[in-house]
């Protein structure tokens, strides 16, 4: 009888759960963008279809690609005669044809001798793979991105904002033009690497992928790093340049932030070399104080700098981060200050002041690239945070509330940070445009 009751109870609960799951609606999708991408892809495929019917075999193209100078743009595989419905993994690779970049409209090589191609000539779904040399693409007025050698990206969107690329291998360096005249968090460019999304609003940065680890380096401006799956603007972690951090996932969450020294070598200077694995770059720089090597100059961020990369410094698996050495170039004006930062902070928790500075930096990051702020209002608010047992911020409230986009941006920056407080804390912020 008891057994029967248990079974009945299980069935009843199961019914309840099924009902509740049915009632749970999926989040809304950006159907406008998807529709635009679909139309764009379909139109592009229509244009290429006649060429395919004239005996442009896969192997022929592959041989052609192999002979191509340094770069091929590959469209993904679409096996003829196969049932595409069973082939869901191939969207990224449409067909086995490869197109020599010499057929893609290009502009003259820039000052660094790197050829520049027009993003507008690409289409969604195209895979671009650099060979022995770097290659650069420009979307006029929006972004210039450069692939390091042996890097592979898939173009996700071209004509619809934000322009998105998926980094499948190697590293990409990007310079995004700030979009002035709007207080909104307009994402003009984003790089998806694995399950992370790096969204920018005007900055100079690079993203490197090594399996599930993603290395983000911000030369100037700010970028947000968050999960691909999240809706709306990416707000997971904010990196304010100059900063550098590695992101991995841990137990299904964005485990940020193995921060480590910032390279002060000119952005993109490493492009002549094949992208090294992130794990290699995470190793401390074995610099000799007597023989400074400018090409491998590494500095740590000043402890007071209100950037996310400056906190939560954790030793890596080898525990070697503590040995990171500052061999900043002599002409760095604040090199001496940075030398004081040879070791990561012993206490990874942020102080209230640092949290306040982070919010202000976040508000400030709404302007970019030294341009006048597009945030022309004074912000004054009380920030209340709630912490979990580990001291991590789990809830952020602004009183009075800020504009939703700003609140999401700045609240997202604080979320998950470790704060030197118990249970809850609050502080006031006052931001005035300069």
């Amino acid at each position, binding site marked *: 009888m008891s057994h029967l009751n248990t*079974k009945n*109870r*299980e*069935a*009843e*609960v*199961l019914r*309840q*759960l*099924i009902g*509740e*799951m*049915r*009632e*749970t609606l*999926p*989040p809304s*999708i*950006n*159907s406008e*963008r*998807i*529709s635009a*991408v*679909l*139309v764009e*892809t*379909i*139109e592009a*495929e*229509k244009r290429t279809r006649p060429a395919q019917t004239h005996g442009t075999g896969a192997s022929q193209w592959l041989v052609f690609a192999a002979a191509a100078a340094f770069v091929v743009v590959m469209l993904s595989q*679409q096996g003829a005669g196969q*049932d*595409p*419905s*069973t*082939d*869901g*993994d191939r*969207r990224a690779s449409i067909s086995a044809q490869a197109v020599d970049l010499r057929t893609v409209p290009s502009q003259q090589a820039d000052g660094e001798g790197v050829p520049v191609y027009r993003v507008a000539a690409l289409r969604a*779904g195209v895979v671009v793979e650099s060979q022995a040399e770097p290659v650069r693409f420009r979307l006029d007025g929006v972004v210039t991105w450069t692939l390091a050698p042996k890097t592979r990206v898939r173009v996700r969107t071209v004509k619809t904002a934000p322009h998105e690329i998926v980094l499948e291998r190697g590293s990409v360096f990007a310079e995004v033009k700030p979009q002035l005249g709007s207080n909104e968090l307009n994402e003009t460019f984003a790089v998806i690497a*694995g*399950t992370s999304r790096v969204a920018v609003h005007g900055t100079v940065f690079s993203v490197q992928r090594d399996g*599930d680890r993603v290395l983000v380096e911000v030369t100037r401006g700010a970028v947000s790093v968050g*999960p*691909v*799956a*999240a809706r709306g603007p990416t707000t997971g972690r904010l990196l304010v340049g100059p900063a550098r951090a590695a992101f991995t*996932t*841990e*137990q*299904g*969450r*964005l485990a940020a932030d193995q921060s480590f020294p910032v390279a002060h070598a000119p952005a993109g200077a490493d492009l002549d070399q094949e992208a090294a694995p992130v794990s290699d770059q995470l190793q401390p720089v074995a610099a000799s104080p007597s023989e400074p090597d400018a090409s491998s100059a590494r500095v740590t961020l000043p402890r007071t700098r209100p950037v996310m990369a400056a906190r939560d410094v954790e030793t890596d698996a080898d525990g070697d981060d503590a040995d990171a050495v500052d061999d900043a170039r002599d002409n760095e004006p604040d090199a001496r200050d940075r030398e004081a930062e040879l070791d990561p902070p012993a206490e990874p928790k942020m102080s209230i002041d640092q949290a306040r500075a982070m919010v202000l930096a976040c508000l400030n990051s709404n302007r970019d690239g030294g341009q006048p702020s597009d945030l022309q209002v004074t912000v004054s608010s009380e920030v209340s945070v709630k912490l979990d*047992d580990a001291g991590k911020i*789990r*809830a952020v409230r602004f009183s009075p509330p800020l504009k939703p986009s700003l609140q999401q941006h700045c609240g997202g920056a604080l*979320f998950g940070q470790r704060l030197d407080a118990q249970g809850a804390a609050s502080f006031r912020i006052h931001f005035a445009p300069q």
Partner: protein
Amino acid sequence: MDEMVVRAQAGDTQAFTALFEQHKGIVTRIAFRMLGPSADLDDIVQEVFLQVYRSLPSFRGQSKFTTWLHRVSVNVVLMSRRRAKSRPSYVQEEAGRHEPARGLGPDREVARGRRVEAFQRLLEKISEKKRTVFILHEIEGMSPADIAATVECPVLTVRTRLFYARREIAQLMRTEPSLEALLDGSSAPPVDAVDATRAKESDDT
């Protein structure tokens, strides 16, 4: 065959866009049910419709378009799952995940959200084949015959998988604290279940 499908087959982009608008909801729902809240639904939906476009010429109208669309969607979702298997997935934060609905109090809504999350975790624990038929039948309300056409197996196999899926889920419910409390409760007050879970968690810590 649906006129819109015929026009889309003939290469009419507008007709295809109309098909997308008409069926995007179903595809999004299937992807959400099968992949959970951490999935990149935009990407999956886009991928499904690209596959639909590419395979439309091979659609002969021998089954309903929606059945065929389900088949494409399920295949794309399964391929996406396999691809992502080697990668850790993101779990969204609790706050803001479940919008208040139908006048439920915030506590009840939170409790409901937690139960749904727990249920999704349970579904992750059963095999892919069983999970697929369970979701398509129990959550999406598809008939075993349609599911058989979707996953390309006999109807009897679908029924067998459903039986074992239900049994495994019932057993697994005991492993989820919030659901265990629900099983033990008399009239299943959702908030109590959550409170019990919270209390248990705080005891553990």
